[in-house]
């Protein structure tokens, strides 16, 4: 007979306000098998856990049910406590009477009845729980970092400096990401390239970082400590090992006028190119779509002029499999489009402000390139349409951000600050110019941030107009901006020479596809979800995968760097151990019942099911049955639901446990 202990938590008043916890304890105490039932103010607190451990010892409890918050919150806490009291942790279950009961119901009677039933179900379930031994798996002490922006660079450097090998994968031909595109950074106005490029060089020179640029993640298999990652190295057409980065090929390339994405298509580049002069690696790539050799078969100038013979037109994509133990995802962000419907985006475009068809209406990143000393204009603010200096410039904030009607309700966080920076840069470069900013609210929390914003108004003479712009249109060579000033209550019309839109920060295109390869969750905008909004902000719910930077949500540089270092620390903590304990929620085959139809093998998403021969003592084959490799099993249980004879069972979710709960209804 089981001796089950049931502990009902008040959670301060969070539960007890709606649920009559004493009554729950009293009712549950009557259930067969329950030896002890009590309630307590905070079960998760130290005294609460003490109470639990004491009861296990004194009441000789065989199983424990804690009725409190969601198991997603504290199951680990209580299982640990139970373990320290000498019981197998998997003999402890939680009934969720907070998120699923007290917080979602107001009627005390109904909520109490429901709580009693929920606890009752768990009592029946726990009776069928079995002792599960922990499974240990080895840890591969190498990390994969996806994304070579500032987040990925920082994480890679930290992990590598701790003594572990790092694979850094970047989609573009060079690392650097968006930070390499920026002109100067707030709140100090130091040059972005000056602080960024040394880090890029550090990455290139680090003995423990293997850099794959112009590469993407093809496939991810395995689990924490033991991932197998397939990287697709796209054909660069230049052999990295041979190239010296002299740049002659780029000089001689006959195709010169290809808009450079790095310069927001303002500058031009040849068909064989590095995106920017400080690129790491400084190895060019051939843009096969625009290269004459690839289009017509003629040309081949770059191969002729290349001294070391690094140009290779026949190069093909290569797939490389790398075993790693942890993954840091740092894929960063993209900017929202003001076009009607950007291709492949889950969110509709803004569909206003000229739809991207008015050349002098640009976004913030384009302004960064104009303001950058290494940019297409050499740091001069000039209009894309006619190259004239704009004397009146209008900045519009919250374009897409906080626009529920456009499908985005979040704040992009960085725009208030970078717009303030833009007004300053503009004022420094165009002394007789006037900047106007249309804004809803100025959000400037952060060290020295508000001071910076005030400076833009008080010292740099930017005119801030609280209100939104209704529309703008081209009139001659001016752009008429019509908006309202809600502080004064008048309509405003400004004839501007240039308009800069602070478009919303969005996840990178394809963020969802990558998440699906990694098996991590993401929100409706495709930002990756952290395991806990407050307490586990850098971990994914999927063990062994960590987040850094704007792929998780809009972030400025200091926040991104902090999170990257935090993610690196998490990886280093994982690598500090040789063996990893994994949850023993895995499928096991009952060989006696297995008839070897291998339905389990057919549906297993992990390929964890193998065929095992059973032989008698003489060595004659008796039958072939299924075998589940516990190291590979992900623990989904699809095999069990599919098995006709139920000869494979998922520990922790056995049919007995589930049917016990259903029967407790």
């Amino acid at each position, binding site marked *: 007979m089981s001796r089950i202990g049931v502990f009902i938590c008040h959670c301060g008043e969070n539960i007890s306000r709606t649920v009559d916890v004493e009554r729950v304890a009293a009712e549950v105490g009557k259930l067969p098998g329950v030896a002890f039932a009590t309630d307590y103010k905070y079960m998760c607190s130290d005294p609460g856990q003490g109470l639990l451990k004491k009861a296990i010892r004194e009441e000789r409890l065989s199983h424990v049910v804690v009725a409190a918050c969601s198991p997603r919150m504290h199951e680990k806490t209580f299982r640990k406590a139970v373990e320290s009291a000498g019981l197998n942790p998997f003999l402890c279950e939680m009934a969720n009477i907070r998120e699923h009961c007290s917080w979602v119901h107001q009627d005390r009677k109904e909520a109490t009845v429901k709580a009693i039933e929920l606890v009752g179900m768990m009592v029946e379930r726990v009776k069928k729980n079995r002792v599960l031994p922990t499974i240990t798996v080895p840890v591969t002490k190498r990390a994969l970092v996806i994304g070579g922006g500032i987040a990925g660079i920082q994480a890679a450097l930290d992990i590598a400096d701790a003594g572990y090998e790092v694979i850094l994968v970047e989609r573009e031909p060079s690392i650097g990401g968006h930070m390499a595109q920026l002109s100067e950074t707030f709140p100090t106005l130091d040059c972005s390239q000056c602080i960024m490029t040394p880090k890029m060089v550090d990455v290139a020179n680090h003995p423990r970082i293997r850099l794959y640029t112009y590469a993407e993640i093809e496939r991810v298999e395995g689990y924490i400590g033991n991932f197998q990652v397939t990287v697709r190295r796209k054909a660069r057409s230049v052999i990295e090992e041979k190239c010296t980065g002299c740049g002659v090929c780029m000089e001689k390339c006959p195709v010169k006028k290809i808009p450079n994405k790095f310069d927001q298509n303002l500058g031009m580049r040849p068909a064989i190119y590095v995106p920017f002069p400080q690129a790491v690696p400084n190895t060019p790539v051939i843009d096969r779509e625009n290269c004459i050799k690839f289009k017509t078969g003629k040309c081949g100038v770059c191969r002729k002029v290349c001294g070391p013979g690094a140009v290779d037109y026949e190069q093909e994509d290569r797939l490389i499999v790398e075993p790693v133990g942890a993954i840091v995802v740092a894929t960063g962000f993209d900017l929202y489009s003001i076009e009607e419907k950007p291709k492949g985006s889950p969110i509709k475009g803004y569909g206003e402000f000229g739809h991207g068809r008015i050349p002098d209406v640009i976004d913030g990143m384009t302004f960064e390139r104009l303001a950058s000393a290494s940019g297409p204009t050499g740091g001069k603010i000039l209009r894309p349409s006619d190259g004239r200096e704009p004397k009146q410039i209008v900045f519009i904030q919250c374009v897409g951000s906080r626009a529920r009607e456009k499908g985005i309700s979040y704040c992009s966080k960085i725009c208030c600050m970078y717009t303030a920076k833009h007004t300053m840069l503009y004022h420094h470069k165009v002394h007789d110019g006037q900047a106007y900013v249309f804004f809803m609210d100025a959000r400037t929390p952060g060290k020295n941030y508000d001071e910076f914003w005030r400076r833009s108004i008080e010292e740099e003479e930017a005119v801030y107009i609280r209100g939104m712009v209704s529309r703008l249109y081209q009139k001659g060579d001016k752009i008429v901006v019509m908006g309202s000033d809600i502080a004064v209550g008048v309509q405003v019309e400004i004839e501007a020479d240039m308009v800069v839109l602070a478009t919303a920060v969005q996840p990178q295109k394809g963020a969802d596809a990558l998440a699906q390869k990694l098996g991590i969750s993401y929100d409706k905008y495709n930002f990756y979800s952290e395991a806990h909004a407050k307490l586990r902000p850098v971990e994914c719910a999927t063990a062994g995968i960590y987040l850094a930077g704007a792929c998780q949500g809009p972030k400025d540089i200091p926040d991104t760097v902090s999170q990257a270092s935090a993610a690196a620390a998490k990886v280093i903590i994982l690598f500090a151990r040789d063996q990893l304990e994994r949850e023993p929620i895995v499928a096991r085959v009952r060989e006696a*019942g297995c008839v070897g139809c*291998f*339905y389990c093998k*057919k549906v297993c998403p992990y390929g964890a099911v193998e065929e095992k021969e059973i032989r008698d003592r003489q060595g004659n084959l008796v039958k072939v049955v299924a075998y589940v490799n516990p190291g590979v099993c992900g623990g989904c249980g699809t095999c069990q639901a599919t098995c006709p004879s*139920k*000869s494979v069972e998922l520990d922790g979710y056995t*049919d007995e446990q589930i*049917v016990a709960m259903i029967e407790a209804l």
Partner: protein
Amino acid sequence: MHDNPIDTSIYAAVTEAIQGEARRILSEGHVAAVVGYAAARRKGSAQPVVVTRADDAGKLIFSAACVNNLAVYLTKARKEIPKSGKIGIVVKGCDLKALVGLMGESQLKREELYLIGVPCAGVLASTIQPDTALTAGTIAPKCRECDAHLPTGCDFVPARQPVTPELEKHYSAEIARLEAMTPAERWAYWKGQFKKCIKCYACRQVCPFCFCEQCLCDRNKPQMVETTPRPAGNFAWHIVRAMHLAGRCAGCAECERVCPMDIPLNLLNRKMAKELKELYDYEAGFEVREKGPLATYDEKDDQSFIK
């Protein structure tokens, strides 16, 4: 209309060919045994037989009374079959589908079988005396919608073409009739049917696909399905059975033939087959496929029923 005779004149020639082929493969040592049909004691009746000697090949027959699906003798009813060596088996088109399914489920290997296919115009319904002539009225319901009169992919098929008249489809009509009912009417119909069940498990015993060593429904930890022949347990048993056969059963209708209480069991199986055909364009039994419709998926599968 119902008395319209069905031409079974080829069966004599087929019998002769089967005997000849069995004799050859047994005497040449191709196979260790041939599973087929032999005449039984009652006039005109037939029963399964395992022939291991070439001299006994003359026992083999094929007639409209050869109703059994012999596939079951290759799996769980293997007792009389030699443990090693290739086995020859006489199969009608409908039985072949079961064999094909069993191969897909790793229960049989094609290279261990010698398939003697039978051109078949139909067999008698289970309720008809074995010496009755085959007519539109006496033919088994499954034969009314047979699409495999001539088995394909066999090692040997007598070169005869069965004459197959167009018959009224029994199961399709029944499914349509039931589908037109209200849920309450359907419930009443099945309740009436399942009420009759005595849980003799003959349906399970005869089914080539019920090859589990221990049936889910016999387990008591946990007891998924009540075992006593009460209406609740009966209902659960038949639902579980139909679900487990979905995508696998190709309609040999042996369950229905052996049911002593005349429950239209194949009707459930045919309904599931129809749904899986409509949903995933899958038909069981035509080719050996590694994955049945419920062991695979397509990202674009219909999900109109999911909110």
